[in-house]
């Protein structure tokens, strides 16, 4: 059985920016299997909130059997708000690791591009991906994880309000610094992914994007989390792929976003 469902021990949690929390949990059987780009389903202890909150793996510490999750509290009375109250010694129900994760064979110079709360999965990817890495992180205003990221590659930052790095989005940063790559790994909001898909097509390079969708089962059974695929998918027999199981990472050319 490669997926674990059960309690994880909360090791340490801290707030690292407005509404952004960094949570280390200990769950050795998951840490030993996890790959960058995979995610966990997190469950609240509130009996009225039934569904999982999918959160990407931000860092893996196989030695200590620990995983780091970095997530945003999306509002009052949400599941993520409940998670933000967890303290060392508490437990948290989790399932995972889920999804496919990013491929780690690096075919050349790589862009690792994260937008907003899509930045966290880039950290473990940066640690594990071999070769030359240019990390481009886009934020609205407040930065987070930048100190962690710059240890594993050249870091370029873009902010919408121009308070740090390039004013604008991640592609503005790419242009401003005249960067180029042979492959893109990206996670972030849909408009960013759409722009990267077009960019990759224009430059004829390979582009992996991590998608988001509402989930119920998290393991491929309920068909809640589909995205439109270009070709008929072998499992669904229609133009749908499951983000939770066939993804969340897809080649930008195989999905319509």
């Amino acid at each position, binding site marked *: 059985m490669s997926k674990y*469902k059960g309690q994880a021990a909360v090791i340490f949690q801290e707030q690292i920016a407005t509404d952004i929390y960094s949570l280390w949990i200990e769950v050795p059987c998951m840490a030993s299997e996890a790959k960058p780009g995979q995610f966990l389903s997190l469950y609240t202890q509130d009996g*009225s909130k*039934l*569904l999982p909150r999918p959160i990407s793996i931000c860092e893996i510490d196989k030695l200590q059997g620990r995983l780091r999750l970095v997530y945003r509290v999306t509002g009052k009375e949400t599941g993520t708000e409940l998670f933000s109250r967890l303290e060392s010694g508490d437990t948290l129900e989790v399932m995972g690791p889920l999804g496919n994760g990013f491929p780690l064979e690096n075919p050349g110079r790589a862009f690792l591009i994260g937008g907003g709360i899509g930045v966290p999965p880039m950290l473990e990817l940066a640690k594990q991906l071999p070769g030359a890495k240019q990390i481009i992180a886009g934020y609205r205003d407040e930065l987070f994880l930048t100190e962690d990221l710059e240890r594993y590659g050249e870091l370029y930052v873009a902010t919408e309000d121009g308070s740090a790095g390039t004013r604008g989005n991640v592609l503005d940063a790419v242009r401003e610094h005249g960067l180029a790559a042979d492959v893109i790994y990206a996670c972030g909001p849909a408009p960013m992914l759409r722009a990267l898909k077009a960019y990759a097509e224009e430059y004829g390079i390979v582009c992996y994007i991590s998608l988001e969708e509402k989930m*119920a*089962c998290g393991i491929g059974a*309920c*068909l809640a989390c589909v995205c439109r695929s270009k070709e008929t998918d072998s499992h669904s027999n229609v133009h749908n792929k499951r983000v939770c199981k066939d993804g969340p990472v897809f080649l930008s050319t195989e999905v319509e976003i």
Partner: protein
Amino acid sequence: MDTKVNLAGVELKNPVMTASGTFGSGEEYSEFVDLSRLGAVVTKGVANVPWPGNPVPRIAETKSGMMNAIGLQNPGIDVFCRRDIPFLKQFDTKIIVNVCGKTMEDYCEVVERLGEEEVDMLEINISCPNVKEGGIAFGQNPKAVEEITAEVKKRAKQPVIMKLSPNVTDITETAKAAEAGGADVLSLINTLTGMKIDIHRRAFALANKTGGLSGPAVKPVAVRMVYQVANAVKLPVIGMGGIETAEDAIEFLLAGASAVSVGTANFYNPSATVQVAEGIEDYLERYGFEHVSDLTGLVK
């Protein structure tokens, strides 16, 4: 202790099955539960041809429940027979195939095709609230229920379960209509039609506008309907709607169900089905019941 139940001549090792659409065809859950521990696996609805289903978002969380508007995405009966039935045959459990369609002919085509396959029962979904044609349009009208039941029965090689919609004024009417049409077993409830609005985007939470409400929130309505139907027809009833634990399942049995299905709970507890089966055994032992069937309809 005897946990076996007999549904229209098909003997299940225990009364616990999966609710259609919440368990795929079992493959994904086989990592978490031994499918041979279940009375039956009820598959996701399958149609004569592949269906793409609805646009996303297809689900939304609600208090103690969820809404879905998957729209019966399915790979079509061909792929299903080639892939899903052989997978399920590996396990010592009964196979119940849930059938959906847009027209009477669609249903009949799938039912005929399944006559050649090694499946144990057919469950006819005439109560899906999430597709424009078919589904619920049949399920809310007693005349239509009787008609489609009769047509399906004419062609079916396996016993037929008719799955009833809770979105009706009087569920005993559709139940009696299915009985009159020749149904072997009834299952209920399918989902209650609901709606959620995102007040910040000022848009529907589901692309389909409405969706089917399921989970613990609906359990009281489901128990009431199972009680009503079990007391109105002579057919065995499969009860479902919000079952999370053995206690919930036993509530349905006491209300009149002969077997139960676990649906939404699988999503947050992938071993829910097996835990329900085990908990029912504990209950039988604790209170000294010899047969699980002794529980059926005990509370009147």
